[in-house]
């Protein structure tokens, strides 16, 4: 019904976090040492890509199935008060499941990247302007 709203919510939060982290990394001159190891802003960008990209295609699928319309109240389930409860339940259970699964896969991918990198590459450079 509207399960993609949960990943969109997470994407908004992680995008804000990514922007803040990116600013801090620029301020302190933190960058990756070699191609393999990613800075935190790059890791979060990867998660944001998964969340925004997936949500976009899911939103299209909901439009295709007539569950989302371009006019208020946008979600067709909102027209009938009896459908609101099941919609919120679906958002919590399926949407929540999507959020947990995508974040878990992202965490595993980041862990694999770190484990594959030699120890010397794990150190980030701190360039404090001097």
């Amino acid at each position, binding site marked *: 019904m509207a*399960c*993609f709203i949960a*990943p969109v919510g997470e994407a908004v939060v992680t995008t804000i976090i990514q922007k803040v982290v990116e600013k801090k990394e620029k301020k302190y001159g933190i960058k990756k040492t070699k191609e393999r190891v990613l800075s935190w802003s790059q890791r979060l960008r*990867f998660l944001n*890509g*998964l*969340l*925004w*990209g*997936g*949500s*976009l*295609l*899911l939103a*299209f*699928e909901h439009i*295709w199935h007539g569950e989302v319309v371009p006019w208020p109240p946008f979600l067709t389930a909102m027209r009938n008060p009896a459908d609101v409860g099941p919609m919120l339940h679906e958002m919590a*259970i*399926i949407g929540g*499941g*999507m959020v947990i*699964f*995508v974040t878990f*896969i992202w965490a595993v991918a980041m862990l694999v990247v770190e484990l594959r990198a030699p120890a010397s590459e794990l150190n980030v450079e701190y360039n404090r302007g001097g």
Partner: protein
Amino acid sequence: MWLIITTLAAITTTLIWYLKDPKNEYKLGLLAIIFWGATLMWFVDHVMAYRAEGEEFFEINADATLLGISVVIIALLVWEITLLISDPKGILKKK
């Protein structure tokens, strides 16, 4: 059916990115990530619908196939717009 088509698109795009565009000059990494994000989300959706409501895991019919193809087109459109905006070869800037 759209889960199968999107998964196939994700695998193919990842392979092309790895072989032809590892530096992500042509933003193929972005396209792969879009496909993977949707694949993971639809996988959860399909598993939950299968377990809770006993729906068919793969819905194989003309409508589902057309949806799968349309999803790929939407992702390709997003990727192409991003590619043209970033213009890695500077073709649009020259003109």
